[in-house]
């Protein structure tokens, strides 16, 4: 019997939840037993509820928060300012206990292993690296026609100092078979539907990328346990590729003899057209390819947009730049809407995949409205475009220039 429009009778079934909500639940009959209606979570959550500073909440179920650029001014992003990108429902604190956590390595390996976090800490060399992670959909908001998904602007990016062990060391300890082609990552977060048979997300990487010595199985961020919302007690950090490769609440890595086909590996998820398409064009799955390295990009983290300076006053513009698997070769700035450009001073990364910091002195000699534009160039000559590049159905890989407004008065 097909369900129909809501009736008084179906509304009554949801009466107890409805009382809590102060609103009817027309489809109470669809709520799986025991599942709290998502709407109860559709409340006035704030970033502070999750130990975060003034991050913007894009959604509360799943929880997604991004960081305004001016809060990313630190060279190493504090945990309180590290963006949150969830695909499912995180485990709660009690199940995420470090002591009882287990990580399984299986599939195309000589010896499948199950390790505790203590095993990881004692059997492998601990490594600390500054590694940047960016959501593949950062900048999605600026595609036209609109691309579906969380409408990230600029702030789904951060660079923290991670401590863990090299993924390669752990895989080598298990013995990588010649037949291994791709990794498959699994975590403890639940699918939004509550269906235990579904993974919220399970992505992976080709073996060559997985064996890069900068990939970590990490238990600490900035010298402390990482926030639960960023993957505590154990996560992957696979820098330079979409953040979704860096499974949070990591429980298992399976080596496969073929490309992974887990949740959000297929269709339009984290995939872009093989060849450029006109904006809005439907693209068949077979014409899509998996995103690998993220593109060159930069942020202006100081001053904050809307800043006011006195005519003739010197101030410093500064920020960070990064380039996926490559390094940044140069950052140029413009204060005349892109008509002319000048070079910013650019630091080397403290280690590969760390943010490169840049800065430049600026002064306005006449009053008015100005914009500071930043444009990074990578070691292979790719530059940031002024507009969103390569439209794609899900709005990935937007590395357009960041611009801020500045008034000279």
């Amino acid at each position: 019997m097909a369900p129909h429009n809501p009736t008084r009778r179906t509304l009554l079934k949801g009466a107890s939840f409805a009382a809590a909500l102060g609103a009817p639940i027309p489809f109470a009959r669809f709520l799986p037993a025991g599942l709290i209606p998502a709407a109860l979570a559709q409340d006035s959550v704030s970033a502070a509820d999750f130990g975060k500073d003034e991050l913007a909440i894009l959604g509360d179920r799943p929880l997604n928060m991004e960081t305004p650029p001016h809060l990313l001014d630190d060279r190493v992003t504090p945990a309180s300012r590290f963006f949150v990108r969830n695909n499912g429902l995180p485990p709660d604190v009690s199940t995420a206990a470090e002591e009882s956590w287990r990580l399984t390595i299986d599939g195309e390996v000589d010896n499948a292993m199950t390790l505790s976090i203590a095993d990881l800490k004692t059997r492998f060399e601990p490594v600390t690296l500054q590694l940047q992670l960016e959501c593949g959909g950062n900048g999605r908001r600026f595609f036209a026609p609109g691309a579906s998904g969380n409408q990230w602007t600029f702030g789904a990016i951060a660079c923290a100092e991670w401590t863990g062990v090299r993924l390669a060391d752990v895989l080598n300890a298990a013995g990588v078979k010649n037949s291994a082609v791709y990794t498959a990552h699994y975590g403890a977060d639940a699918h939004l539907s509550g269906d235990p048979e579904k993974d919220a997300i399970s992505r992976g990487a080709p073996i060559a990328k997985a064996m890069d010595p900068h990939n970590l199985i990490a238990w600490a961020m900035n010298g402390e346990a990482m926030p639960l919302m960023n993957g505590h007690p154990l996560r992957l950090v696979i820098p330079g590729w979409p953040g979704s490769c860096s499974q949070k609440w990591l429980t298992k890595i399976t080596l496969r003899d073929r490309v992974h086909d887990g949740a959000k590996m297929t269709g339009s998820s984290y995939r872009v057209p093989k060849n450029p398409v006109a904006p809005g064009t439907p693209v068949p799955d077979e014409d899509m390819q998996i995103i690998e390295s993220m593109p060159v990009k930069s942020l202006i983290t100081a001053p904050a947009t809307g800043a006011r300076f006195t005519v003739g006053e010197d101030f410093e513009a500064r920020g960070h730049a990064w380039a996926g698997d490559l390094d940044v070769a140069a950052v140029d700035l413009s204060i005349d809407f892109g008509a002319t450009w000048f070079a910013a001073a650019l630091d080397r990364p403290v280690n590969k995949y760390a943010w490169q910091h840049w800065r430049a002195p600026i002064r306005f000699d006449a009053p008015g409205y100005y914009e500071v534009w930043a444009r990074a160039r990578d070691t292979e000559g790719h530059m940031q475009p002024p507009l969103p590049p390569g439209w794609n159905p899900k709005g990935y890989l937007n590395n357009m220039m960041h611009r801020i407004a500045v008034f000279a008065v």
Partner: protein
Amino acid sequence: MRPPRVSLFFFAAAIAFLIYAAFSGGGQPGPEPIASTLAVAETALANPHALPDFNWRFNALDPGVVEASSASASFDPADDYWGLPRTEGVDLVAGYCASCHSLRIVMQQSASEARWRELMAWMIDKQGMAQPPDDDLEQMIGYLSENFGA
């Protein structure tokens, strides 16, 4: 219904022209041209959402990330339907979509009818959404593309 979109460049060009006009004086001694130019820009800064197309094209006056981008609705936890527009199909969308995820994500979207149709198929086929009767599905797609259209 959303106001007509005016591209970023029209806005940037307008600002640039105002600045140019202010500096050049246009051959006419106008009343404090710099002050009036700044007044326009600062009014925009004070109320960036009043700018045409502010929500859809990047504008450097935006102090950061703000609310959902669709002009027709914004999330309101105090509202019985969390701020969803009250057009035909609101019950269906609230019921089906909020069973799994926040309505905030719905209200951020700007998708064509064809894309909403794909998204609903994906939700049903891959994401565990209950299969609605055809009439209801059509009503939801109509509601979503009317209120959160491309």
